[in-house]
């Protein structure tokens, strides 16, 4: 048992809280940038889970390299999302979901 193993309950709680905040950001916020930030926050919870998993199983290198892979993917998705926000702003002049809803769900 490492030091990391002793703190599992706090880390689990942190993962749950960060993930919850991220989901709240995506679901409840109306500003497109905040929705995207909610997504990045949710990804941080995942990264924490992988880093902690690596530390817990005495294999920190693996956990951290996985975290980097996930961060890279997150950056790519965020870049695509932001490019779409730019285009939305060009078409509507707004980045708020209440003003750009033309499609019916």
């Amino acid at each position, binding site marked *: 048992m490492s030091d990391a193993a002793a703190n599992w309950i706090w880390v689990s709680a942190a993962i749950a809280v960060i993930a919850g905040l991220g989901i709240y950001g995506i679901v409840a916020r109306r500003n497109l940038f905040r929705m995207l930030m909610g997504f990045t926050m949710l990804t941080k919870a995942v990264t924490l889970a992988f880093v902690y998993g690596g530390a817990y199983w005495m294999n920190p290198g693996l956990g951290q390299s996985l975290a980097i*892979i996930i961060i890279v993917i997150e950056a790519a998705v965020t870049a695509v999302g932001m490019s779409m926000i730019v285009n939305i702003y060009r078409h509507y002049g707004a980045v708020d979901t209440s003003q750009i809803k033309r499609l019916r769900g």
Partner: protein
Amino acid sequence: MQTPELFWAMGLLLPLFMGAVLAYVVGKIISRTRGDRAGGLAAAAITLAAAAGVYILTLVYPHISTGGAAAAVDWLGVLEPDALSLFMVKVIFPLIILVAIYSIDYMKEDLGTDKYYALLLIMTGGMVGVAGAGDIVSLYVFFEILSISSYCLVSFRKQSWEPIEAGFKYVITNALGSTLAILGLGLLYLFSGKLSMAEIAAQVSGWPDLPVMAALVLVITGFGVKAAMVPLHFWLPDAHSAAPSGISALLSGIVIQVGFFAMLRLVLTVFAVQLQMVGLILIVFAAITMTYGNYIALAQSDIKRMLAYSSVAQMGYIILGFGVGFYYQSVNGITGGLFHIETHAFMKALAFLSAGYIIERAGTRRMAELKGAGRAMPLAGAAFAVAALGLAGIPAFSGFMSKLMIYKSGFQAGTALGVVLSSVAIANSIISLGYYLPAIHTLFSPGDAAALKQKGAASPAAAVILPVAAMALITLVLGWYPELGLGPVNPAVAEIFKVIGG
């Protein structure tokens, strides 16, 4: 090329991703010197060559997928292709090749088609990677490669508002979905310390219930968003109708099925202990999904939105097949589900491609304004009719054969639930006639055919006729000789039954 992993990585994935780079670079160089249209053509040629070459490679070496010899290289189980992966690949490649051919004519007015073809190849690589993935991280990485390229493809025509708005909706919901899925996979890693799905599966039975259940819920929700299971489907009609028609065909035909496949892969390895419970969950979702999809499709006035909602409904059939298969250990259910993935891929792609052609010529997607379009464009109209009848499950079309197996699996279960499920599925098939038949009727009823004829050229280009005719042929032939289509399905079913053990 001795081991399956090495073949999958070097033979399939490497040519696809290198082909994407090559298509973009060569396309860009040629479009600088000879104009955009030539660049797009060059990129299309490279795409077709890469996809066709890789497809031929899988057909020539089918045995590699089942060879279980000890790997010479330690791949850490990153790729573990089996018969199920080979089945997906055999559906993916013909579809990609036909759509790429169709896009040569369909996308000729668009700028930057070199990027379009490069993204198409990257998307193919992502799908092939998901099909062959053996550990949770490679599953996630390839899934994200697939997702990111499809985000870009949906909003490819960024000049108009609809693809952009639908695209953002698509990005945010699907990013949420895949992040929830990777959170579930992260929990699995946290509790097992292993990444390979087989190794996690070996450990999972000794765990407390809570982390496994949490991971299961996250994975089903996450990939449920990708697979458009009903409470999570709301992004699909927007994204699938706003995308260029070739991309709609791919998204509806195979991408959402790959989402379901990823879930299936995890269920069959990691959650194999809870298979019965998963089966029950899938059955419930399937019944809701197909009924809801069909009822909403009835109310659509936009032909592509109607087809998109019909994809939701057809997804319900596929999920029902697997749900019944897991819950009752029914061979017919699994076979029907896999076979419906295959038949639906070609039927739905055919519907979107022919509808896309009609829409492009008529300049509208509204059903009411498409009156008489089938008379002005008899080939496209006939192709759409074949696709619609197949999707509705009329005998003599391929959709009937796969749906029949799913109905049979429910009746064979011999319980009240099974009979109810099959009845619901049959009733849904009849409901779906309520929007397919009016659509065909509208296309062929007398209308402004003369005006449409003026707008469009006299006859479609060869690049449109070839894929549409090939898909119509597949739909008709599989309706009469389902054995031909079951060839790739049966080994995959055997692979699944190694896990179910029924």
